[in-house]
């Protein structure tokens, strides 16, 4: 008798010992009636990947339909939980009375991660990034001072940019500054404006900001195209740019590195503006026309073709497309703002004589020789007129 009990005990122990791990999951699921387990909840809270198939695919079946006399009969084999799961995972055939397919998605759980990313990492990037570059430039200014024209201005001037070039530049600059300011007001409205000025003020500011942002964006996009057409030929990278970067634009060593119309740093700003400006415009158009210009699924599919290891999702719900467009828009725009703050510094207080190039278009000849010596030679060979400082134009 004892031997039988011991034998049965050993068999039971062996059975438990060799039972696969998933059986534990199944047992846990069985204990919750097939619903998610504590492990599932904890894994989700930690941001781990959770296999949702046990409920995503558990949507009921008309094969199990109960007779009409049964309490479940009217649902035709689908319980309320089955129907809710279908809604939860966007698997149900929802009919809506408006024109947007996005409205057929009643529950989409990417909203929280979008909100947390926007309020967390995106705001931190914008705050620390823009604050950091301003502090760094202020530190540079107070330690190294303003970059002056060596030997002082010559008093003679040469035309650096024609009026249509300056017009295009200032359309781009003016619209970008307004877009940056209104974008930051929208990004930091809840965390900065509401605590200081209250909800009413933030509502008015946000309304104004989104109107300006949506409508001035067209000027930005048009002038971005104009800038590209006007200056692309002068911004083709060359070996001169490598020398320019090696000398830090004149900060390292003696003398100014040679440059044509645009030096290495200006070419970097140009291509950054064109590439990031195009990207921010694309995501902006996606936001301007909600759910009508989804582009992330297609972009991810292209990236996966080149880098299969990335394994990016290629099937995105309409709301996920909008959430990604919104985050990408903020990240790219912030990167541009950081770079443009440096550009504004060097084009204004950072360098003597630099603003004149975009001010009235006439720069001091000595300034031009020091920063764009090869361009001056080309212009003088073409017979460019030399003016006098203070000439009325």
């Amino acid at each position, binding site marked *: 008798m004892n031997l039988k009990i011991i034998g049965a005990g050993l068999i039971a122990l062996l059975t438990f010992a060799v039972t696969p791990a998933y059986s534990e999951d199944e047992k846990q699921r069985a204990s919750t009636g097939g619903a998610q387990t504590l492990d599932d909840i904890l894994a989700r809270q930690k941001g781990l990947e959770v296999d949702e198939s046990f409920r995503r695919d558990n949507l009921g079946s008309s094969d199990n339909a109960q007779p009409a006399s049964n309490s479940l009969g009217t649902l035709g084999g689908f319980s309320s939980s089955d129907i809710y799961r279908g809604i939860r995972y966007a698997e149900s055939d929802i009919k809506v*009375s*408006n024109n947007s397919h996005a*409205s057929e998605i009643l529950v989409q759980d990417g909203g929280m991660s979008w909100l947390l990313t926007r309020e967390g990492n995106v705001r931190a990037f914008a705050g620390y990034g823009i604050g950091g570059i301003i502090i760094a430039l202020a530190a540079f200014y107070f330690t190294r001072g303003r970059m002056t024209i060596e030997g002082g201005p010559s008093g003679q001037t040469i035309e650096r940019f024609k009026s249509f070039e300056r017009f*295009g530049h200032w359309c781009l600059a003016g619209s970008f500054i307004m877009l940056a300011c209104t974008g930051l007001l929208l990004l930091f409205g809840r965390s900065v404006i509401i605590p200081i000025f209250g909800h009413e003020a933030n509502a008015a500011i946000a309304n104004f900001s989104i*109107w300006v942002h949506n*409508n*001035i964006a*067209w000027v930005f996009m*048009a002038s971005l195209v104009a800038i590209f057409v006007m200056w692309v030929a002068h911004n083709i990278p060359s070996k001169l740019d490598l020398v320019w970067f090696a000398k830090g634009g004149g900060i390292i060593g003696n003398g100014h590195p040679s440059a044509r119309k645009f030096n290495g740093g200006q070419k970097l700003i140009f291509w950054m503006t064109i590439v990031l400006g195009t990207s921010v415009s694309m995501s902006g158009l996606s936001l301007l026309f909600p759910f009508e210009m989804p582009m992330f699924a297609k972009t991810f599919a292209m990236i996966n073709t080149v880098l299969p290891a990335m394994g990016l999702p290629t099937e995105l719900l309409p709301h996920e497309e909008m959430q990604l467009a919104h985050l990408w828009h903020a990240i790219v725009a912030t990167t541009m703002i950081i770079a443009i703050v440096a550009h504004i510094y060097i084009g204004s207080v950072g360098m003597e004589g630099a603003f004149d190039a975009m001010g009235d278009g006439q720069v001091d000849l000595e300034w031009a020789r020091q920063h764009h010596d090869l361009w001056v030679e080309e212009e003088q060979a073409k017979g460019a007129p030399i003016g006098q400082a203070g000439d009325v134009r």
Partner: protein
Amino acid sequence: MKTMLAAFAFTIAASFGAYFVLSEMGFSSEEVQSAPSVRLD
């Protein structure tokens, strides 16, 4: 400086222009996303 101020003035004017053109084209979300059975006004 005149060119800069002209560009800023153009930017503001073009923004209002964009607003009116888009409004005429039925740009607003209520017009884009509502079915014909919905009365907006």
